[in-house]
Protein backbone atom coordinates (compact mmCIF):
# COMPACT_ATOMS: atom_id res chain seq x y z
CA UNK A 1 0.00 0.00 0.00
CA UNK A 2 1.34 3.40 -0.90
CA UNK A 3 1.00 5.69 2.10
CA UNK A 4 -0.96 8.89 1.70
CA UNK A 5 1.10 11.91 2.74
CA UNK A 6 1.86 15.46 1.75
CA UNK A 7 4.81 14.13 -0.28
CA UNK A 8 2.59 11.65 -2.14
CA UNK A 9 0.20 14.50 -2.89
CA UNK A 10 3.01 16.69 -4.21
CA UNK A 11 4.44 13.84 -6.31
CA UNK A 12 1.06 13.06 -7.87
CA UNK A 13 0.34 16.74 -8.47
CA UNK A 14 3.45 16.85 -10.64
CA UNK A 15 2.36 13.91 -12.81
CA UNK A 16 -1.33 14.64 -13.32
CA UNK A 17 -2.43 12.23 -10.55
CA UNK A 18 -1.65 9.24 -12.73
CA UNK A 19 0.03 7.20 -9.99
CA UNK A 20 -2.73 6.66 -7.44
CA UNK A 21 -3.41 2.93 -7.15
CA UNK A 22 -6.65 1.27 -6.12
CA UNK A 23 -7.29 1.71 -2.42
CA UNK A 24 -8.12 -2.00 -1.99
CA UNK A 25 -7.88 -5.14 -4.10
CA UNK A 26 -10.92 -7.08 -5.36
CA UNK A 27 -9.65 -10.69 -5.50
CA UNK A 28 -11.50 -13.88 -6.35
CA UNK A 29 -12.50 -15.77 -3.19
CA UNK A 30 -10.10 -18.48 -2.01
CA UNK A 31 -11.31 -21.95 -1.02
CA UNK A 32 -10.72 -21.51 2.69
CA UNK A 33 -10.04 -18.81 5.26
CA UNK A 34 -9.22 -18.78 8.97
CA UNK A 35 -12.10 -16.36 9.45
CA UNK A 36 -14.91 -15.04 7.29
CA UNK A 37 -16.76 -11.85 8.17
CA UNK A 38 -20.17 -11.49 6.48
CA UNK A 39 -20.91 -7.84 5.86
CA UNK A 40 -18.46 -5.17 4.63
CA UNK A 41 -19.98 -2.26 6.43
CA UNK A 42 -18.11 -0.30 9.09
CA UNK A 43 -18.59 -2.90 11.83
CA UNK A 44 -17.55 -5.85 9.64
CA UNK A 45 -14.49 -4.11 8.23
CA UNK A 46 -13.45 -2.86 11.68
CA UNK A 47 -13.79 -6.41 13.01
CA UNK A 48 -11.49 -7.68 10.24
CA UNK A 49 -9.03 -4.83 10.81
CA UNK A 50 -8.64 -5.47 14.54
CA UNK A 51 -8.49 -9.25 13.95
CA UNK A 52 -5.36 -8.55 11.91
CA UNK A 53 -3.94 -5.68 13.95
CA UNK A 54 -4.61 -6.87 17.51
CA UNK A 55 -4.69 -10.65 17.09
CA UNK A 56 -2.51 -11.42 14.07
CA UNK A 57 -5.27 -13.27 12.19
CA UNK A 58 -4.83 -12.13 8.60
CA UNK A 59 -6.14 -15.02 6.48
CA UNK A 60 -9.54 -13.33 6.51
CA UNK A 61 -12.27 -12.63 3.96
CA UNK A 62 -14.92 -9.93 4.28
CA UNK A 63 -17.93 -10.87 2.15
CA UNK A 64 -20.46 -8.27 1.04
CA UNK A 65 -23.63 -8.84 -0.97
CA UNK A 66 -23.75 -5.29 -2.31
CA UNK A 67 -20.97 -2.75 -2.33
CA UNK A 68 -18.66 -1.74 0.43
CA UNK A 69 -20.26 0.52 3.03
CA UNK A 70 -23.51 0.69 1.02
CA UNK A 71 -25.81 -0.26 3.87
CA UNK A 72 -26.28 1.65 7.09
CA UNK A 73 -22.64 2.80 7.09
CA UNK A 74 -23.47 5.04 4.14
CA UNK A 75 -26.95 5.96 5.35
CA UNK A 76 -26.52 7.35 8.86
CA UNK A 77 -26.17 10.92 10.09
CA UNK A 78 -22.51 10.34 11.18
CA UNK A 79 -23.02 11.30 14.82
CA UNK A 80 -20.35 10.18 17.31
CA UNK A 81 -20.98 10.33 21.06
CA UNK A 82 -20.59 8.15 24.16
CA UNK A 83 -22.92 9.81 26.68
CA UNK A 84 -24.80 6.63 27.61
CA UNK A 85 -26.19 5.82 31.05
CA UNK A 86 -25.40 2.14 31.57
CA UNK A 87 -21.81 1.11 32.34
CA UNK A 88 -21.39 -1.51 29.57
CA UNK A 89 -22.79 0.90 26.95
CA UNK A 90 -20.69 3.89 27.91
CA UNK A 91 -17.60 1.63 28.07
CA UNK A 92 -17.91 0.37 24.49
CA UNK A 93 -19.15 3.66 23.02
CA UNK A 94 -16.36 5.60 24.77
CA UNK A 95 -13.81 3.06 23.50
CA UNK A 96 -15.16 3.71 20.00
CA UNK A 97 -15.11 7.49 20.42
CA UNK A 98 -11.56 7.36 21.75
CA UNK A 99 -10.43 5.23 18.79
CA UNK A 100 -12.10 7.69 16.39
CA UNK A 101 -9.82 10.44 17.77
CA UNK A 102 -6.74 8.86 16.18
CA UNK A 103 -8.35 6.75 13.49
CA UNK A 104 -7.17 8.92 10.59
CA UNK A 105 -3.54 8.47 11.71
CA UNK A 106 -4.05 4.81 12.54
CA UNK A 107 -5.52 3.99 9.11
CA UNK A 108 -3.51 6.59 7.13
CA UNK A 109 -6.86 7.64 5.72
CA UNK A 110 -8.62 10.91 6.47
CA UNK A 111 -11.95 10.03 8.07
CA UNK A 112 -12.55 13.72 8.85
CA UNK A 113 -13.30 13.14 12.52
CA UNK A 114 -14.69 16.41 13.78
CA UNK A 115 -15.14 16.56 17.58
CA UNK A 116 -17.26 19.68 17.27
CA UNK A 117 -19.35 19.05 20.36
CA UNK A 118 -22.68 17.36 20.79
CA UNK A 119 -25.72 18.71 22.60
CA UNK A 120 -28.77 16.69 23.65
CA UNK A 121 -31.64 19.03 24.42
CA UNK A 122 -33.76 18.51 27.50
CA UNK A 123 -37.31 19.68 26.74
CA UNK A 124 -39.30 18.07 29.54
CA UNK A 125 -38.65 17.90 33.28
CA UNK A 126 -38.28 14.15 32.92
CA UNK A 127 -35.47 14.69 30.43
CA UNK A 128 -33.78 17.26 32.71
CA UNK A 129 -33.65 14.70 35.52
CA UNK A 130 -32.63 11.92 33.13
CA UNK A 131 -29.76 13.86 31.56
CA UNK A 132 -28.47 15.17 34.89
CA UNK A 133 -28.39 11.58 36.07
CA UNK A 134 -26.51 10.56 32.92
CA UNK A 135 -23.99 13.38 33.45
CA UNK A 136 -23.32 12.07 36.98
CA UNK A 137 -23.06 8.51 35.69
CA UNK A 138 -20.68 9.62 32.93
CA UNK A 139 -18.41 11.27 35.51
CA UNK A 140 -18.13 7.97 37.36
CA UNK A 141 -17.49 6.17 34.07
CA UNK A 142 -14.73 8.55 32.96
CA UNK A 143 -16.77 10.00 30.10
CA UNK A 144 -16.60 13.79 29.94
CA UNK A 145 -20.07 15.31 29.69
CA UNK A 146 -21.65 18.28 31.42
CA UNK A 147 -25.02 19.88 32.04
CA UNK A 148 -25.79 23.19 30.31
CA UNK A 149 -28.43 25.67 31.46
CA UNK A 150 -30.67 27.23 28.77
CA UNK A 151 -28.56 30.41 28.42
CA UNK A 152 -25.43 28.26 27.91
CA UNK A 153 -27.34 26.26 25.27
CA UNK A 154 -28.13 29.50 23.45
CA UNK A 155 -24.42 30.36 23.52
CA UNK A 156 -23.26 27.14 21.82
CA UNK A 157 -26.12 27.12 19.30
CA UNK A 158 -27.28 30.69 18.66
CA UNK A 159 -29.93 29.78 16.05
CA UNK A 160 -31.97 27.84 18.60
CA UNK A 161 -35.39 29.00 19.75
CA UNK A 162 -35.44 28.38 23.51
CA UNK A 163 -39.16 29.09 23.81
CA UNK A 164 -40.70 26.85 21.17
CA UNK A 165 -44.45 26.47 20.72
CA UNK A 166 -44.61 22.99 22.22
CA UNK A 167 -41.52 22.23 24.30
CA UNK A 168 -39.26 24.91 25.79
CA UNK A 169 -35.53 24.16 26.02
CA UNK A 170 -34.83 23.51 29.70
CA UNK A 171 -31.15 22.74 29.31
CA UNK A 172 -28.93 20.22 27.62
CA UNK A 173 -26.38 17.50 28.03
CA UNK A 174 -23.11 18.52 26.40
CA UNK A 175 -20.32 16.24 25.24
CA UNK A 176 -17.52 18.50 24.00
CA UNK A 177 -15.59 15.67 22.31
CA UNK A 178 -18.61 14.24 20.53
CA UNK A 179 -19.11 15.15 16.89
CA UNK A 180 -19.14 13.65 13.42
CA UNK A 181 -16.90 11.86 10.94
CA UNK A 182 -17.15 11.11 7.23
CA UNK A 183 -19.06 7.81 7.18
CA UNK A 184 -17.92 6.53 3.77
CA UNK A 185 -14.30 7.25 4.64
CA UNK A 186 -14.55 5.09 7.76
CA UNK A 187 -15.53 2.08 5.64
CA UNK A 188 -13.01 2.91 2.91
CA UNK A 189 -10.17 3.51 5.38
CA UNK A 190 -10.73 0.19 7.16
CA UNK A 191 -11.09 -1.60 3.80
CA UNK A 192 -7.81 -0.17 2.55
CA UNK A 193 -6.01 -1.15 5.74
CA UNK A 194 -7.52 -4.68 5.66
CA UNK A 195 -6.54 -5.13 2.02
CA UNK A 196 -3.03 -3.98 2.90
CA UNK A 197 -2.80 -6.73 5.54
CA UNK A 198 -3.58 -9.30 2.84
CA UNK A 199 -7.25 -9.76 3.65
CA UNK A 200 -9.73 -10.37 0.82
CA UNK A 201 -12.64 -7.97 0.44
CA UNK A 202 -15.19 -9.66 -1.78
CA UNK A 203 -18.05 -7.45 -2.95
CA UNK A 204 -21.18 -8.47 -4.87
CA UNK A 205 -21.09 -11.87 -3.20
CA UNK A 206 -24.24 -12.83 -1.31
CA UNK A 207 -24.22 -15.56 1.32
CA UNK A 208 -27.02 -18.02 0.56
CA UNK A 209 -26.39 -20.67 3.24
CA UNK A 210 -24.24 -21.38 6.29
CA UNK A 211 -22.59 -24.82 6.28
CA UNK A 212 -22.11 -26.73 9.49
CA UNK A 213 -20.97 -30.13 10.75
CA UNK A 214 -21.70 -31.51 14.23
CA UNK A 215 -22.86 -28.11 15.43
CA UNK A 216 -19.73 -26.29 14.26
CA UNK A 217 -19.56 -23.93 11.32
CA UNK A 218 -17.49 -25.11 8.34
CA UNK A 219 -18.12 -22.41 5.76
CA UNK A 220 -20.65 -20.53 3.69
CA UNK A 221 -22.31 -20.97 0.32
CA UNK A 222 -22.36 -17.81 -1.73
CA UNK A 223 -23.37 -16.58 -5.15
CA UNK A 224 -19.68 -16.95 -6.04
CA UNK A 225 -19.30 -20.52 -4.78
CA UNK A 226 -18.56 -22.28 -1.51
CA UNK A 227 -16.01 -20.80 0.85
CA UNK A 228 -14.74 -22.73 3.86
CA UNK A 229 -13.75 -21.16 7.18
CA UNK A 230 -12.68 -22.02 10.71
CA UNK A 231 -14.58 -19.12 12.24
CA UNK A 232 -17.51 -17.06 11.03
CA UNK A 233 -18.55 -13.57 12.08
CA UNK A 234 -22.01 -12.32 11.10
CA UNK A 235 -22.07 -8.50 11.03
CA UNK A 236 -25.02 -7.60 8.82
CA UNK A 237 -27.24 -5.18 10.78
CA UNK A 238 -30.74 -5.18 9.25
CA UNK A 239 -30.39 -8.65 7.74
CA UNK A 240 -29.15 -10.29 10.97
CA UNK A 241 -32.39 -12.25 11.31
CA UNK A 242 -32.04 -13.64 7.79
CA UNK A 243 -28.45 -14.80 8.40
CA UNK A 244 -29.35 -16.18 11.84
CA UNK A 245 -32.04 -18.30 10.22
CA UNK A 246 -29.43 -19.69 7.79
CA UNK A 247 -27.22 -20.53 10.77
CA UNK A 248 -30.16 -22.15 12.55
CA UNK A 249 -31.01 -19.86 15.44
CA UNK A 250 -33.33 -16.96 16.22
CA UNK A 251 -32.52 -13.49 17.46
CA UNK A 252 -34.46 -11.03 19.63
CA UNK A 253 -34.33 -8.56 16.76
CA UNK A 254 -36.79 -6.72 14.57
CA UNK A 255 -35.78 -4.89 11.39
CA UNK A 256 -37.35 -1.51 10.74
CA UNK A 257 -36.69 1.52 8.57
CA UNK A 258 -34.96 4.67 9.85
CA UNK A 259 -34.78 7.74 7.63
CA UNK A 260 -32.46 10.68 7.18
CA UNK A 261 -32.38 13.66 4.86
CA UNK A 262 -30.20 16.59 3.85
CA UNK A 263 -31.10 20.15 2.92
CA UNK A 264 -29.69 22.34 0.19
CA UNK A 265 -26.24 23.68 1.14
CA UNK A 266 -26.16 27.00 2.98
CA UNK A 267 -23.57 29.16 4.75
CA UNK A 268 -22.47 27.88 8.18
CA UNK A 269 -25.28 28.27 10.73
CA UNK A 270 -24.63 25.50 13.22
CA UNK A 271 -21.19 24.24 14.21
CA UNK A 272 -22.20 21.49 16.66
CA UNK A 273 -24.49 18.46 16.62
CA UNK A 274 -27.89 18.97 18.24
CA UNK A 275 -30.22 16.13 19.20
CA UNK A 276 -33.78 16.79 20.34
CA UNK A 277 -35.13 13.47 21.54
CA UNK A 278 -38.52 14.56 22.81
CA UNK A 279 -39.59 15.99 19.46
CA UNK A 280 -37.39 13.58 17.42
CA UNK A 281 -35.01 15.68 15.36
CA UNK A 282 -31.25 15.47 14.96
CA UNK A 283 -29.25 18.05 13.09
CA UNK A 284 -25.69 18.97 12.14
CA UNK A 285 -24.14 20.80 9.21
CA UNK A 286 -21.83 19.05 6.77
CA UNK A 287 -18.64 20.59 5.40
CA UNK A 288 -20.53 21.14 2.14
CA UNK A 289 -23.07 23.24 4.01
CA UNK A 290 -25.99 20.83 3.90
CA UNK A 291 -27.98 20.35 7.07
CA UNK A 292 -27.85 16.63 7.86
CA UNK A 293 -31.09 15.60 9.53
CA UNK A 294 -32.17 12.37 11.20
CA UNK A 295 -35.57 11.46 12.50
CA UNK A 296 -37.60 8.70 14.10
CA UNK A 297 -38.10 5.10 13.04
CA UNK A 298 -41.19 3.49 11.58
CA UNK A 299 -43.19 1.29 13.90
CA UNK A 300 -43.40 -1.78 11.70
CA UNK A 301 -41.09 -4.43 10.24
CA UNK A 302 -39.59 -3.49 6.91
CA UNK A 303 -36.67 -4.57 4.71
CA UNK A 304 -37.19 -2.12 1.84
CA UNK A 305 -34.87 0.78 2.86
CA UNK A 306 -37.87 3.08 2.35
CA UNK A 307 -39.54 4.76 5.27
CA UNK A 308 -42.95 6.33 5.77
CA UNK A 309 -43.44 9.86 4.52
CA UNK A 310 -45.14 11.20 7.61
CA UNK A 311 -41.98 10.63 9.68
CA UNK A 312 -40.17 13.16 7.49
CA UNK A 313 -42.91 15.65 8.21
CA UNK A 314 -42.70 14.99 11.95
CA UNK A 315 -38.94 15.44 11.96
CA UNK A 316 -39.02 18.67 10.00
CA UNK A 317 -41.84 20.05 12.12
CA UNK A 318 -39.73 19.39 15.21
CA UNK A 319 -36.68 21.09 13.71
CA UNK A 320 -38.55 24.09 12.36
CA UNK A 321 -40.02 24.84 15.78
CA UNK A 322 -36.57 24.42 17.39
CA UNK A 323 -34.66 26.31 14.66
CA UNK A 324 -37.13 28.72 12.97
CA UNK A 325 -34.32 30.05 10.73
CA UNK A 326 -34.41 26.86 8.62
CA UNK A 327 -38.14 27.00 7.86
CA UNK A 328 -37.70 28.04 4.19
CA UNK A 329 -34.93 25.56 3.36
CA UNK A 330 -35.49 23.02 0.61
CA UNK A 331 -34.67 19.41 1.31
CA UNK A 332 -32.44 17.82 -1.31
CA UNK A 333 -32.32 14.11 -0.63
CA UNK A 334 -34.00 11.60 1.65
CA UNK A 335 -33.17 7.94 2.20
CA UNK A 336 -33.82 5.02 4.54
CA UNK A 337 -31.80 2.27 6.11
CA UNK A 338 -32.88 -0.94 7.83
CA UNK A 339 -31.93 -0.94 11.48
CA UNK A 340 -31.88 -3.99 13.74
CA UNK A 341 -33.66 -3.23 17.01
CA UNK A 342 -33.26 -5.42 20.11
CA UNK A 343 -35.66 -5.59 23.03
CA UNK A 344 -33.44 -3.47 25.31
CA UNK A 345 -32.07 -1.21 22.54
CA UNK A 346 -28.53 -2.40 23.24
CA UNK A 347 -26.38 -4.36 20.79
CA UNK A 348 -25.53 -8.05 20.71
CA UNK A 349 -21.88 -9.12 20.47
CA UNK A 350 -22.08 -12.79 21.19
CA UNK A 351 -21.26 -16.41 20.67
CA UNK A 352 -24.18 -18.25 19.10
CA UNK A 353 -25.73 -21.72 19.42
CA UNK A 354 -23.62 -22.67 16.38
CA UNK A 355 -19.99 -23.42 17.26
CA UNK A 356 -17.30 -20.99 16.01
CA UNK A 357 -20.05 -18.71 14.69
CA UNK A 358 -20.22 -15.24 16.25
CA UNK A 359 -22.68 -12.42 15.78
CA UNK A 360 -22.47 -8.66 16.11
CA UNK A 361 -25.81 -6.95 15.59
CA UNK A 362 -28.60 -5.00 17.24
CA UNK A 363 -26.93 -1.58 17.03
CA UNK A 364 -30.32 -0.24 16.04
CA UNK A 365 -30.41 3.47 15.33
CA UNK A 366 -26.95 4.24 16.71
CA UNK A 367 -24.33 1.99 15.16
CA UNK A 368 -22.04 4.40 13.30
CA UNK A 369 -20.60 5.94 16.45
CA UNK A 370 -19.66 2.50 17.75
CA UNK A 371 -17.80 1.15 14.72
CA UNK A 372 -14.21 1.10 16.07
CA UNK A 373 -15.20 -0.16 19.54
CA UNK A 374 -17.57 -2.73 18.10
CA UNK A 375 -14.90 -4.05 15.74
CA UNK A 376 -12.37 -4.11 18.59
CA UNK A 377 -14.69 -6.16 20.84
CA UNK A 378 -15.89 -8.47 18.04
CA UNK A 379 -12.32 -9.20 16.89
CA UNK A 380 -11.38 -10.17 20.45
CA UNK A 381 -14.43 -12.45 20.66
CA UNK A 382 -13.64 -14.17 17.34
CA UNK A 383 -9.91 -14.51 18.03
CA UNK A 384 -10.21 -15.90 21.56
CA UNK A 385 -13.58 -17.59 21.28
CA UNK A 386 -14.63 -15.81 24.48
CA UNK A 387 -15.79 -12.22 24.95
CA UNK A 388 -13.40 -9.69 26.46
CA UNK A 389 -14.29 -6.96 28.94
CA UNK A 390 -16.02 -4.76 26.36
CA UNK A 391 -18.34 -7.44 24.94
CA UNK A 392 -18.99 -9.54 28.05
CA UNK A 393 -22.37 -8.02 28.96
CA UNK A 394 -23.67 -7.94 25.38
CA UNK A 395 -24.30 -11.67 24.84
CA UNK A 396 -27.58 -12.82 23.28
CA UNK A 397 -28.59 -14.90 26.31
CA UNK A 398 -29.15 -11.81 28.45
CA UNK A 399 -32.75 -11.72 27.18
CA UNK A 400 -33.39 -15.16 28.63
CA UNK A 401 -31.67 -14.37 31.91
CA UNK A 402 -33.11 -10.90 32.37
CA UNK A 403 -29.75 -9.07 32.37
CA UNK A 404 -30.92 -6.22 30.16
CA UNK A 405 -28.71 -3.26 29.32
CA UNK A 406 -31.70 -1.04 29.31
CA UNK A 407 -30.93 1.98 27.18
CA UNK A 408 -34.53 2.28 25.96
CA UNK A 409 -35.47 3.93 29.24
CA UNK A 410 -32.10 5.60 29.81
CA UNK A 411 -32.15 9.14 28.53
CA UNK A 412 -28.82 8.75 26.69
CA UNK A 413 -30.32 7.08 23.64
CA UNK A 414 -32.20 8.24 20.60
CA UNK A 415 -34.62 5.98 18.79
Amino acid at each position, binding site marked *: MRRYSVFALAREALRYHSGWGKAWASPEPKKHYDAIIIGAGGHGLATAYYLGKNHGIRNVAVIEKGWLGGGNTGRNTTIIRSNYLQDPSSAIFEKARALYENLSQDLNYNIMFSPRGLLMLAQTHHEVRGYKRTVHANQLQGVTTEWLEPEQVKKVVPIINLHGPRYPVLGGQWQARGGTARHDAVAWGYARACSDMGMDIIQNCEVTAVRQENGVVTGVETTRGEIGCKKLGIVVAGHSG*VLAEMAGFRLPIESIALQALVSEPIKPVIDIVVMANTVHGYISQSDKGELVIGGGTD*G*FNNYTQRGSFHHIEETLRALVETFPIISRLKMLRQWGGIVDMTGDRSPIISKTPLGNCFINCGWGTGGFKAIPGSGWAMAELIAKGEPGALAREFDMWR*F*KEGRFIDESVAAGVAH
Partner: protein
Amino acid sequence: MLILECPCCGVKAEETELAPGGEAHLKRFGPGSSDAEFETYMFARKNPKGVHFERWRHAYGCGKWFLAARDTATLEVFGTYPAQTTEPPAELIAKIQAKRPGWKGWK
Protein backbone atom coordinates in the same frame (compact mmCIF):
# COMPACT_ATOMS: atom_id res chain seq x y z
CA MET B 1 -48.01 4.94 1.91
CA LEU B 2 -49.30 1.94 3.79
CA ILE B 3 -53.08 1.46 3.51
CA LEU B 4 -54.92 -1.21 5.50
CA GLU B 5 -58.64 -1.91 5.43
CA CYS B 6 -59.93 -2.12 8.98
CA PRO B 7 -61.97 -5.34 9.24
CA CYS B 8 -63.91 -3.90 12.20
CA CYS B 9 -65.31 -0.72 10.63
CA GLY B 10 -64.53 -1.29 6.95
CA VAL B 11 -62.58 1.95 6.52
CA LYS B 12 -59.52 1.94 4.25
CA ALA B 13 -57.15 3.57 6.70
CA GLU B 14 -53.83 5.10 5.78
CA GLU B 15 -50.80 4.83 7.97
CA THR B 16 -51.22 7.98 10.08
CA GLU B 17 -54.58 6.64 11.32
CA LEU B 18 -53.02 3.39 12.45
CA ALA B 19 -50.85 2.33 15.37
CA PRO B 20 -48.53 -0.64 14.83
CA GLY B 21 -48.58 -3.41 17.44
CA GLY B 22 -45.84 -5.85 16.46
CA GLU B 23 -45.91 -9.52 15.52
CA ALA B 24 -49.28 -11.31 15.61
CA HIS B 25 -50.18 -14.76 16.94
CA LEU B 26 -47.64 -14.76 19.75
CA LYS B 27 -48.33 -17.38 22.38
CA ARG B 28 -48.46 -15.82 25.82
CA PHE B 29 -46.71 -17.36 28.81
CA GLY B 30 -47.61 -16.53 32.40
CA PRO B 31 -46.43 -17.31 35.94
CA GLY B 32 -44.65 -20.64 36.29
CA SER B 33 -43.29 -20.65 32.75
CA SER B 34 -39.62 -21.30 32.04
CA ASP B 35 -37.03 -18.64 31.18
CA ALA B 36 -36.90 -19.94 27.60
CA GLU B 37 -40.69 -19.60 27.23
CA PHE B 38 -40.63 -16.05 28.56
CA GLU B 39 -37.78 -15.18 26.20
CA THR B 40 -39.72 -16.57 23.24
CA TYR B 41 -42.87 -14.71 24.18
CA MET B 42 -41.26 -11.39 25.05
CA PHE B 43 -38.23 -11.05 22.77
CA ALA B 44 -37.73 -13.73 20.08
CA ARG B 45 -39.36 -12.55 16.87
CA LYS B 46 -39.67 -14.13 13.44
CA ASN B 47 -38.68 -10.86 11.73
CA PRO B 48 -39.06 -12.46 8.27
CA LYS B 49 -37.91 -10.89 5.04
CA GLY B 50 -41.20 -11.66 3.33
CA VAL B 51 -44.66 -12.58 4.60
CA HIS B 52 -45.31 -11.16 8.06
CA PHE B 53 -48.41 -11.30 10.26
CA GLU B 54 -48.83 -8.35 12.55
CA ARG B 55 -51.13 -6.50 14.91
CA TRP B 56 -52.48 -3.06 14.11
CA ARG B 57 -54.91 -0.74 15.85
CA HIS B 58 -57.22 1.63 14.02
CA ALA B 59 -56.16 4.30 16.52
CA TYR B 60 -57.69 7.40 14.91
CA GLY B 61 -60.74 5.51 13.64
CA CYS B 62 -62.84 2.89 15.38
CA GLY B 63 -60.05 2.25 17.90
CA LYS B 64 -60.15 -1.53 17.55
CA TRP B 65 -57.28 -3.99 17.16
CA PHE B 66 -57.04 -6.12 14.02
CA LEU B 67 -54.48 -8.30 12.26
CA ALA B 68 -52.81 -7.92 8.88
CA ALA B 69 -50.63 -9.98 6.53
CA ARG B 70 -47.98 -7.95 4.76
CA ASP B 71 -44.75 -8.54 2.85
CA THR B 72 -41.82 -6.81 4.57
CA ALA B 73 -39.66 -7.05 1.43
CA THR B 74 -42.16 -5.46 -1.00
CA LEU B 75 -44.65 -3.70 1.34
CA GLU B 76 -47.50 -5.57 -0.43
CA VAL B 77 -50.55 -6.04 1.79
CA PHE B 78 -52.22 -9.46 1.45
CA GLY B 79 -55.19 -8.77 3.66
CA THR B 80 -56.57 -7.94 7.09
CA TYR B 81 -58.76 -9.91 9.49
CA PRO B 82 -60.32 -9.52 12.94
CA ALA B 83 -58.10 -10.12 15.99
CA GLN B 84 -60.44 -12.63 17.66
CA THR B 85 -58.60 -15.64 16.27
CA THR B 86 -55.52 -17.74 17.01
CA GLU B 87 -54.52 -18.28 13.39
CA PRO B 88 -54.88 -16.54 10.02
CA PRO B 89 -58.01 -17.38 7.98
CA ALA B 90 -57.56 -20.31 5.53
CA GLU B 91 -58.66 -18.13 2.63
CA LEU B 92 -55.88 -15.58 3.33
CA ILE B 93 -53.27 -18.35 3.65
CA ALA B 94 -54.38 -19.77 0.27
CA LYS B 95 -54.09 -16.32 -1.28
CA ILE B 96 -50.56 -15.84 0.07
CA GLN B 97 -49.53 -19.35 -1.06
CA ALA B 98 -50.73 -18.56 -4.57
CA LYS B 99 -48.72 -15.32 -4.64
CA ARG B 100 -45.61 -16.66 -2.85
CA PRO B 101 -45.14 -20.29 -4.04
CA GLY B 102 -42.05 -21.01 -1.91
CA TRP B 103 -43.56 -19.59 1.30
CA LYS B 104 -42.78 -21.67 4.39
CA GLY B 105 -46.05 -20.94 6.19
CA TRP B 106 -47.02 -18.64 9.04
CA LYS B 107 -45.79 -20.66 12.05
